[in-house]
């Protein structure tokens, strides 16, 4: 069995290397056998359902005003640097963890801004964890190593588009495979309809693109049917059939072929998902989310999860997002409303999974381009690196902090200038903890997160499993 497992792992690597299994000639024999083995093994263990939901805060959420120092010394240091962009004490909702912070963080206390009261409720219920100072790293990195460039650093730090990509896919803009998509590659065989393995309700996102798994992109109104391929079209009863042929015919080059293929996927997915959603609960959004895009996105996720049996889904990855966090200006005006949306949307979603009786099987987490500077640029903050994030779900070991909070202030070893945080936990570790819960084996973890082997642990402990 040990040998079999090893072979399995190798075959998975091969599978992931050969996109869409286009060609495994030469080694087809053993690999084909082993692939069959994977399917059989998966079938045996696929009695449950799990979903991971990434909520990405585009533009880079200011973490300093999200998980806010609350103990007097830290708060004083915070207001001392932030000056006019600091939140006032009266606006803070202090958090009480089940276990007080220890070690370098002993005595530290933190709070959420009042706009995020809905998340505090979940925290208090033990279903939300806070991940401190997480960000892209290739290896564990000290400030000296950063300054001396003596270890490899993530490419294009502080650049929005690149760090969005690094966060989602361990590589800058141009990356084609994200860690959500790689998990999909490993899990797709458990799903009856592969198309619904990785889903974005927020347009293109590399996070949900795998090597073999294509992200299905749908809108906040659910799947969209193409009206002209059914029924009468401009007075012709047969034109709709021709229309189907025309829009799904690939033409003579790779662009037209890709366009046709996406169209075919649109048609197929719509047929299946529309039918499934027809009987799904409505899960109406509360009034405070009536105009919220991210709320509407999470509603679609909830309804798809409710349809999981009809869709034959066992493992699903979802991507939703909210933009507008690049608060170089007017931060105190802009950010609170966005934070309220995030908190209310996550709470709505979590409560919906509770109502479905599936909260233990659904985990949502936040991501963002990067953190922001601690310093003020007048009325906003600039591009940073490490940030704090939330994990919400029934399987979360919540009401606890994970990782290490930085020293509050400037000119220390936790920051690389203007209070830009040097991450103490890598996104890979954060992701691996989620992936492990999702079902990725330890031996497959480096397929999902190529640099995970550079870190001492791949399980930060915030997930029950």
């Amino acid at each position, binding site marked *: 069995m040990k040998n079999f497992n090893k072979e399995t792992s190798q075959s998975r690597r091969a599978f992931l290397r050969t996109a869409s299994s286009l060609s495994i000639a030469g080694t087809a024999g053993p690999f084909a056998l082993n692939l069959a083995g994977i399917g059989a093994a998966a079938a045996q263990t696929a009695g449950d359902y799990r979903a991971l939901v990434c909520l990405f805060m585009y533009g880079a959420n200011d973490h300093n005003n999200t998980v806010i120092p609350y103990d007097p010394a830290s708060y004083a240091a915070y207001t001392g640097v932030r000056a006019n962009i600091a939140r006032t004490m009266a606006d803070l909702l202090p958090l009480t963890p089940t276990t007080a912070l220890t070690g370098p963080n002993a005595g530290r206390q933190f709070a959420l801004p009042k706009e995020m009261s809905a998340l505090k409720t979940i925290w208090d219920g033990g279903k939300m964890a806070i991940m401190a100072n997480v960000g892209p790293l290739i290896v564990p990195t000290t400030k000296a190593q950063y300054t001396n460039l003596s270890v490899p650093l993530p490419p294009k730090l502080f650049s929005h588009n690149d760090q969005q990509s690094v966060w989602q896919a361990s590589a800058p803009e141009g990356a084609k495979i994200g860690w959500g998509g790689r998990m999909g590659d490993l899990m797709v065989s458990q799903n009856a309809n592969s198309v619904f393995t990785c889903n974005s309700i927020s347009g293109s996102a590399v996070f949900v693109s795998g090597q073999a798994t294509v992200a299905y992109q749908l809108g906040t109104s659910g799947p969209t049917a193409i009206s002209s391929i059914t029924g009468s079209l401009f007075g012709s009863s047969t034109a709709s059939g021709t229309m189907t042929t025309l829009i799904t015919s690939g033409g003579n080059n790779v662009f037209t072929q890709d366009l046709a293929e996406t169209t075919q996927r*649109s048609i197929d997915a719509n047929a299946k998902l529309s039918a499934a959603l027809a009987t799904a609960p409505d899960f109406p959004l509360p009034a405070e989310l009536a105009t919220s895009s991210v709320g509407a996105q999470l509603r679609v996720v909830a309804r798809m999860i409710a349809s999981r049996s009809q869709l034959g889904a066992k493992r699903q990855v979802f991507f939703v997002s909210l933009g507008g966090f690049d608060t170089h200006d007017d931060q105190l005006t802009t950010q609170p409303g966005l934070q309220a949306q995030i908190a209310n949307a996550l709470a709505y979603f979590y409560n919906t999974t509770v109502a479905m009786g599936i909260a233990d099987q659904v985990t949502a987490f936040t991501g963002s381009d990067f953190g922001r500077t601690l310093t003020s*640029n007048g009325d906003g903050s600039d591009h940073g690196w490490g940030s704090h994030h939330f994990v919400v779900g029934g399987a979360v070991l919540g009401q606890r902090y994970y990782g290490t909070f930085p020293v509050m202030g400037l000119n220390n070893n936790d920051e690389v200038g203007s209070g830009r945080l040097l991450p103490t936990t890598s996104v890979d570790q954060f992701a691996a903890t989620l992936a492990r819960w999702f079902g990725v084996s330890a031996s497959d973890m480096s397929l999902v997160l190529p640099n995970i082997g550079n870190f001492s642990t791949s399980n930060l402990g915030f997930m029950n499993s």
Partner: protein
Amino acid sequence: MATTTNACDIARSTASNSAPFEKIRTLMRKAAALCAFVLLAMTALPAQAQAQDYVGFWWKPTESGWGLTIQQQGNSTFGVWFTYDAQGAAIWHTLTCTFSGSTCAGDLYTGTGTPLAQITGSANLVAIKSGTGTITVTGTNRLSLAYTVGGVTQTKTNLEPQNFGTADQVPFCSLQSLTGAGARAALTNYTDHWWGGAAASGWGVQISHQGNQVFAGWYSYNPQGKASWLTLQGTQDPNNARRFTGSVYQVNPGIPFSTINGPVAQSSITTVGTFEFNFADGENGTFTYTLPGFSVVNRSLAIQRFAIAGGAVNVCSVSKANAVSANDASRFLSQATFGPRMSDIDAVSQSGYSAWIDGQFAKAQTLHLPPVTAYLNTLPIDSQKGQTAFQWSIWKNFATGDDALRQRVAFALSEIYVVSLNSNIAFSYPRGPANYLDMLGTNAFGNFRTLLENVTYSPMMGLYLSHLKNQKENAATGATPDENYAREVMQLLTIGLYELNQDGSLKLDAQGKPIDTYNNADVSALAKVFTGLSWAGPDTSNNRFGGGGSPVDANKEIKPMQAYSQYHSTSLKQFLGVTIPATTVANTNGEVGIALDRLFNHPNVGPFIGKQLIQRLVSSNPSPAYVSRVAGVFNNNGSGVRGDMKAVIRAILLDPEARATPTAGATTGKVREPIVRLVHWMRAFNARSADGKFLLGTTSDPATQLAQSPMYSPSVFNFFRPGYIPPNSRVGGQGLASPEMQITNETSIAGYLNYMRGVINAGVGTRTGGVNDIQADYTAELALSTNPGALVDRVNLLLTGGNLSPGTRTLIVNAVSTINIGTSNPNADMRNRVNLAILMTMATPEYLFQN
């Protein structure tokens, strides 16, 4: 009554009686095209000094059924006006005139002669002066015909040449000094005035020859000996290029000329016989016809090309120097504009690419700010103004601006120099964004350094990338300057992240790694340079810097930002190898100038910006050589000037890689942006706004609209990234980028198709009285609706430059043919055919990928 001379030696034939014109109810598929005067496109630009060439058939698409033929020899012009008399009977009038400038005025003649069925030689014309007529050139491919006939004085405007063959086979005619017998014997295009010769005059055929088709107006006499006409439509014998056979058609009744206000009824068109042209050479032939209703069987008459004795003659051929095929012109216009109108295709076909670009460079800019301001002035002073008027103006100028190249490049620049209305700017500054897009349009034909300067000082960019009100560092509070603009002006607006070779490839260091163009220290230092800028106004007070101040400058949102020395950093600034020493006196504008000069002169700008402009207009994946050629022009326009945008645009559009005819499987090209597709529809089908302002707002919803709206990108990173590679794709598998595919997905594909179905069918925009404001004018397409092949060919030319594969074309033609044109509502049926042809074409991957 004197007969006309020269060309009007059409006269003199014998008359007799014959059976009345008999109606033959057999409607040929091309009947509609026939009753429409099928015409040629071969005009030259009116402004040129040489003799003008307006040879061909001219018609008014909205009044299909009558027309004007023009034959020319130099400025000497012979026209035949084919129309209907007060009783609706077909009648012709000749017009002999000489062009002087843009007008050609003369007397109109009609007459009597030998009835058609009895003509064997001369028709014995007795010419009768019927009035006066004037042809006036009113624009490229546009004429008007003014006349006074029988007490009726009218002017028919906007006559246009009609193309009935494949447009790239439309002949071009030019004046040539060919004299003497047989001088034109070698010609293989038969477009001209053909007659029986001096001894058999009084009748003739005005032939138009396009590709393998001929169409002719046959002017003769009815059984009562009155001037009348029939039309001929024939096809070339595949085995004998000099032989054409086809049918003879009659329109009866027509609409009396003085009351024509629409197309002639379909039911008036009948087939009355068959004919054959057999040309012995380019000058002589026989005309054979059988007209059962006229008791004429297999009559043959000799015909010859008409010539003014001793004069130069107009020679028509299917090619001329610098001419461009219609498909190539259409393809070019899809790159250079939001998409071609038929008149644009004509213009490029005739002038060639380079002259067309020159013409575009000379056109006045169609602006957004004036109409936006005019509209705002009509609103209550305290109303919420927003961007409504700007959105309208965007669609209007994109769709109808005469400066089509500038509009297209301005849009491309708006996707690089992004100021998005998907921000608070939209609510507070109703004029600033319009002025910003105008500024991009102005600089589209200017110099890049000025573009960079104007972008940097724009208060809209200042708001969007937050360097407006940016303050110097404060040691006491620890506050540092806002780094937003400093970073993005390098990363996105000028030099990019990595050192580039001129061909756009990465420079590599000794370890084979890319070389960063800047680091975070450069960003922080440059951020200090961009401090101390804020709103324009009569003073530089702290209040004004902060957005207040009195008096308020009502135009601050459209004025460049001004310097406020008290907020500008005076400390040492070192960036990109430039050192600005610490000073005691703030030098805001001087330092911004130093920084912009440094960026402008960075060798990356040519390849970095040049490649993106290629991607916006021509191809997602230009070859390194293409990028290098364009960057080279950016670096030096040939006269030592760096950053000449006109030269860059010309280089992009005229590059061999842009102009090469695509081959099967070739990947040069790009996915058309959804916005461009919609505007393309507006242009191709001459969309008009009932209100006049193009009342259309945003189109951003991917599920129900276009997933994209002009000036509404989600962030400064535009709707899509230039290096976007679609995951799990064949495109990506070949290592190719496809920026537009970043907004192409399962939802947006469906949303686009559904949206266009509605738009094509019912127009788009604000609905008033059940009608959308923006409506296409499908007149020309409707005229072809009885001929699905011709209809699809026209749509294919307009939308894809003839890019549909034969198989796709056949599918669409067959689908269109399934819509029966019934008797209860034939107009609706014909409209359905047009709708379907357009929707299907715009739905195909072959359209969506512009190559």
